[in-house]
């Protein structure tokens, strides 16, 4: 029942997205613009800064993530469908998980474009260790989206929600950004530092565990009028 609800919500979100492709296009275009702006800011005499690729990749992901979160819940607000979802006789944590997985899927799609692009434009060997990179990206995206989904859902009813989402989200997700950037930078070293990659990955996983638990626990009281 629980997993079925999660699946239904995820499928609904993906169907809406596949039909309009609105979030995918806007998010990816925005992330690519970010990458471009960073190139103007950081590249000197045609050479990108060392380690720069890791930071730029994660900034692009988090900026694009904020945009996707805002848009995904704006869609639910316009037709009051979030209220309908919450009124449905389904467990609240299942609603949260369904929305979370939808956001993670969207961001994963964006990362499929961003990683090769950053790797190409900043001459960074990001795809040297695809297994590690996938693990770091997956756990980092999950952590970012776990907090983001909860806050975006809470903000649906608030005034000036577009401004408030980044204001709330960035200070809270600082550990994800640090761990993601450092973990990815460790992969870019000429000889990969397996210990530090493992450390950052462990931190990301711990962060995911704490934040998904906290979000599942507080989603019910937070979304009750």
């Amino acid at each position, binding site marked *: 029942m629980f997993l079925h609800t999660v699946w239904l919500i995820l499928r609904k979100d993906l169907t809406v997205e596949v039909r309009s492709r609105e979030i995918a296009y806007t998010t990816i275009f925005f992330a690519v613009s970010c990458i471009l702006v960073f190139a103007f800011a950081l590249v000197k005499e045609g050479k990108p800064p060392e380690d720069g690729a890791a930071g730029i990749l994660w900034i692009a992901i988090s900026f694009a993530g904020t945009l996707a979160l805002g848009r995904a819940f704006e869609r639910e607000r316009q037709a009051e469908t979030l209220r309908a979802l919450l009124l449905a006789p389904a467990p609240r944590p299942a609603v949260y998980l369904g929305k979370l997985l939808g956001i993670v899927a969207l961001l994963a799609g964006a990362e499929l474009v961003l990683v090769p692009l950053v790797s190409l434009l900043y001459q960074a060997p990001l795809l040297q260790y695809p297994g590690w990179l996938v693990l770091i990206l997956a756990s980092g995206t999950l952590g970012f989206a776990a*907090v983001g989904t*909860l*806050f975006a859902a*809470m*903000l649906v*009813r*608030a*005034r*000036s929600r577009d*401004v*408030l989402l980044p*204001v*709330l989200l960035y*200070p*809270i997700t*600082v*550990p994800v950004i*640090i*761990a993601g950037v*450092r973990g990815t930078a460790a992969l870019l070293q000429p000889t990969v530092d397996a210990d530090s990659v493992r*450390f950052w990955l462990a*931190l990301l996983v*711990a*962060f995911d565990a*704490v*934040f998904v638990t*906290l979000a599942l626990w*507080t989603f019910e*009281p*937070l979304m009750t*009028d």
Partner: protein
Amino acid sequence: MPKWFVRAAVLCGLMFAASPFVIATSRDEAELGMVFKIFYYHMPSAWMFLLSAIVCGIASLRFLFSGDVRRDRTAVAAAELTVLFGLITLVTGPLWARRSWGTWWIWDARITASLVGWMIAWSYLIVRKYGGPGSDKLAAGLAIFGMANVPFIYISVNFWRTIHPATSVVPTLPVDMSWRLWFCVASFTLLYVLLFKLRVYLEEERSRVDTLYLALEG
């Protein structure tokens, strides 16, 4: 307001008036010299900053699960005091850093975690101010996440940058310095309690006025 409030406020005023003399008569620290005296204000305010953030988180948690608005008033008061004492900490810190490390700012674990904690307290207040109806719950959620977050920031920055200031300095201080430090800690704690009490009282009065207005209209 309780009776003890005025007496405690007078005592607190006297303690703060005396504190410059207490600090000035302390001898200079061997390595840092005069600049060490910033520590007498820096550390107590940093403690109050931390304490306040924890009070805010716990009060928010209780508000969220019990729906008791008194807890919410406690949380607002604590959040505002977090911003205030955080500001004192973040202003006195760089003053010291300039002398002892030669730079205003270092991305060290403790400093970065403090800055982010301070920003979370700010975002709590921003949400309450601009979030519109229902923002009290939203802010409570934020405070809970903020409280859970600070250890993570601390750990992550600790491994990202490894420059540390001495963290266990308090027990190693000589007696004539440590009593002065504890005097300042006591002054700041008293100030915190007083401001906290005052702020909660203000919030209670405000909600009473709101209820009266609603009764008048209805």
